[in-house]
């Protein structure tokens, strides 16, 4: 598909979220080969689990799905899902990478994704993709548009009844499968490992894990998602009733020195506003309040979206930190005291659903990858870049680049942009065969 003579050259992208996918596509479109390594069984990252996305409220799956199949079908991209980078040697232009391909016990070439195995499987366990609110089988794909559309067996949950194996007409299921080690030669490496959400149970006063109707924003995303466990019906987990008075609490695990997260997580204000707007979309009668410290609506169209949330959707914004939550034992509503900073008044408020909006943190395993690549991390755990202006996606190791949330929290547009930028820098290395 290309006339470029250097098309044999290749790059490694670590992480198959929206940033890593963009980086892969922009490298592959120049005719170079890309190995896209993803820890989970499917690419798509966090974005695949979101409902709508700010500031234009497009449905996340609707805009992401074409990307998933574009990546999967690109002749220059090789997907290595359910895989992890083990070691990296060499330097820019010629890295030698060892990747562990974990056994999924289903042959990727033989599986057609028909789902007969899953229907037959008697084991039902909470689905991590639904934040544990929905269920999946022990042989499963995490979500309907999973890419590649290949099942995997969760051996920790599997009871080895082997009914799936008997059902599979294509003989794709292999219980003897073992992890495979793959050696790759690549000229450049892009780290796009994403983020994890702050564990909000570190704030005991907010009652997460103790009170059923205190949920996280990610659980909320799954509850309002048409493909989620409730088919998009927003309900309270305590009694299945439709909430009528919802609170969103911002800046939890962000801008907090005491919790080791001194930085702003950059996306929570906007996803909080988006979720508040969606609550009104789902139920125009519902009262919706956002408790915030500052509203940071800084990106293109964000301030306009914030304004729309206030005026068109009637979301109530209260500047103030929320105190300790307690549960009303009669109706499982949450009672909290809040100081409205603008009026200086402290009041007691009752909500029937509380959504905590956690900040972002470096993902599990970023330290291992950083060590394998010899990358420097800042005190907050994110990767350092070489120069904020002259080399904003370059790490301190030549030939290794960063994008998405690997070097700090970012929203979708900024992650996608950084993915393209990292691809640009990587292809310069590939074109000249090393650092010029």
């Amino acid at each position: 598909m290309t006339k470029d003579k250097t098309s044999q050259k290749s790059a490694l992208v670590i992480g198959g979220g929206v940033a890593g996918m963009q980086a892969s596509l922009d490298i592959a479109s120049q005719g170079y080969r890309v190995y896209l390594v993803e820890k989970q069984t499917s690419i798509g990252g966090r974005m695949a689990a979101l409902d709508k996305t700010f500031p234009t409220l497009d449905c996340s799956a609707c805009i992401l799905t074409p990307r998933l199949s574009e990546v999967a079908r690109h002749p220059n991209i090789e997907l290595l899902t359910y895989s992890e980078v083990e070691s990296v040697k060499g330097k820019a232009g010629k890295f030698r990478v060892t990747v562990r391909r974990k056994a999924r016990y289903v042959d990727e070439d033989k599986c057609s994704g028909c789902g007969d195995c899953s229907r037959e499987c008697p084991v039902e366990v909470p689905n991590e993709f639904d934040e544990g609110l929905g269920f999946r089988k022990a042989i499963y794909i995490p979500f309907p548009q999973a890419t590649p559309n290949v099942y995997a067996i969760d051996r920790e949950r599997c009871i080895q009844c082997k009914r799936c194996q008997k059902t599979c007409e294509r003989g794709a299921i292999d219980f003897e499968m073992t992890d495979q080690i793959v050696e790759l030669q690549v000229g450049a490496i892009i780290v796009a490992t994403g983020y994890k959400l702050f564990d909000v149970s570190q704030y005991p006063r907010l009652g997460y894990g103790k009170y059923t109707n205190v949920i996280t924003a990610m659980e909320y995303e799954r509850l309002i998602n048409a493909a989620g466990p409730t088919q998009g019906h927003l309900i309270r987990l305590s009694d299945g009733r439709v909430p009528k008075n919802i609170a969103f609490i911002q800046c939890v695990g962000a801008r907090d020195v005491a919790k080791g997260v001194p930085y702003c997580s950059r996306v929570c204000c906007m996803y909080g506003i988006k979720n508040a707007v969606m609550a009104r979309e789902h139920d125009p009668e519902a009262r919706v309040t956002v408790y915030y410290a500052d509203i940071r609506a800084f990106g293109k169209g964000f301030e306009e979206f914030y304004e729309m949330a206030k005026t068109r959707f009637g979301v109530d914004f209260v500047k103030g930190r929320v105190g300790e939550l307690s549960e009303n034992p009669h109706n499982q509503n949450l009672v909290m005291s809040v100081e409205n900073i603008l009026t200086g008044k402290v009041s007691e408020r009752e909500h029937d659903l509380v959504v905590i909006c956690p900040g972002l943190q470096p993902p599990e395993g970023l330290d291992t990858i950083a060590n394998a690549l010899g990358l420097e991390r800042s005190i907050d755990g994110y990767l350092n870049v070489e120069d904020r202006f002259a080399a904003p996606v370059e790490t301190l190791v030549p030939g290794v680049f960063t994008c998405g949330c690997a070097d700090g929290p970012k929203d979708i547009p900024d992650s996608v942009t950084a993915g393209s930028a990292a691809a640009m820098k990587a292809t310069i290395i590939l074109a000249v065969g090393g650092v010029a």
Partner: protein
Amino acid sequence: MTGTEEPRIGVFVCHCGHNIAGTVDVAKVAQTAAGLPNVVFATDEMFMCSDNGQQLIREKIKEHRLNRVVVASCSPRMHEPTFRRVCEEAGLNRYLFEQVNLREHVSWCHMREPEAATAKAIDLVRMSVARAARLETLPVKTVQVTPRTLVVGGGIAGITASLDIADRGFEVVLVERQPRLGGNLINWTHLFPTDETGAEVLEPLINRVRNHDKIKIFTDAEVVAFDGYIGNFQATVRETKTGRESHHDVGAVIVTTGFQSFKPHGYYGYKITPDILTLAELQEMPRSKELRRPSDGQLVKKLAFIGCVGSREPGVKGHEHCSRHCCSAVAKAAADLRARTEEVVILYQDVRTYGKGHEEFHRLARSRRVIYSKFPERDKPKVTLEDGRITIRWHDVLADEDLILQPDMLVLASAMVPPDTADEVAKLFSLTRSSDGFFNPEHIKLAPLTTHTAGIMIAGAAQAAKNAHEAAIDASGAAAKAVGLMARGEVEIESTVAHVNPDLCSSCHTCVTACPYHAISMDTSRTPEVALVTEAKCHGCGTCAAGCPSGAIMMRHSTTDQILAMVEAYLCPPPAAQEVRAQ
């Protein structure tokens, strides 16, 4: 397949999870479709766009020898390319595919009336099936890409994009309106988040640009004419001093025309004394150990900042947006200047120190006892001169008190707005502008660097208010798009374009003036001359066909025959469909 044999249509109705199926009875739509003329297969499925759904279409095309495919799902804007590709993989010409929008046009807008929504869905599917039967095979065309990129604007974004493209081995023509490269940034002596000056950051990059044998630089110059289409643009560059014009063939364009700092006349006493200045003007003051006020050179003991000057003003045209960089830049400037002054006060609405290290500047400023005071959204501070002294009166929200401050100098963090030339640039490159006045990307989330004009990219503050760090990342990303085009060497173009029947053309020129894309010219090689469509420039909008008094223009893929078939199908439903409607 040629598209001329007896139509064998397959209809695939998508649930889109609960998005469509939650409102529309998709099974009923599929059943009804199965009874329509020429339909040999119809079904419904959870996600047609998923791998499963795509596989289903490919299998059914083979199994039932389908030669037309109708997918009733979402807007074609996102997934038409997906399904066209699926058809091609199964050996069907991409133009034998037809998509019905049951989500945006039905389920989402009739969410609370499921029965009427289902009836409408059935109407739409019936119309599309009728049209599908008349679809024709069209050729898939490609054009070559000239391996050279035009970069418009020589600020940090333009410089970075040029260097990346040139380092990757492609030629660049870099055009800057000002006499020197460096944009706004080069004039700034105080940057955030580092302690460097703009010149310190930019000079090494500018030197590399100047010495790069693949980059041709035009400063003090403008693009005065621009024409062509993706892969094949022609730009005319005029050098202001000499008036000399040069022509350049380029395959791609990156627009990095940046921003200008809003001059807040009428806000907070701007310009009533030289000691009230904007943040950009402060950033341009010469570096010195002391901070002296512009009016008389006296040391500044008390310094004040006011945030959101001309930003975040809903209802005021063009300045509703947040200017993104100012909160962090003010925090950094305040933290730096605190040591040289006795008091620094920042009046703000919200503190938006969002980026990496920005919150830390905010915290540093506070730890150095910079005073942050929040003013009410609707009751902004008032600035006057009293006995020649700057006097600010405002209401502090947190203390709930009216306060007065008489600073020696007042810095207004004024908005980042599009340059005055934005309109001209938009016209020249057929770009659209969003409500903030900056250029619109193709898709705000997943295609932030490309535009609706194929082959033209935007980067940096041309797209929205941004800081220099972000502009540099944008630039590399946009460069990747340009290089992607050039490295492939050719690009596919749409065949859904206007076509002139020369025998019917009366040479009236109506279409030439009607075409918003300048895609129609007169073919003077013929006598009499007739209209000629440059297909790569045609967007298929149909304005010309509607305007042509002779009926000489036919829109491929939207022929009169195809459209009338839809109208007829709607007005004259077959008996089976009538029953469903009556229920």
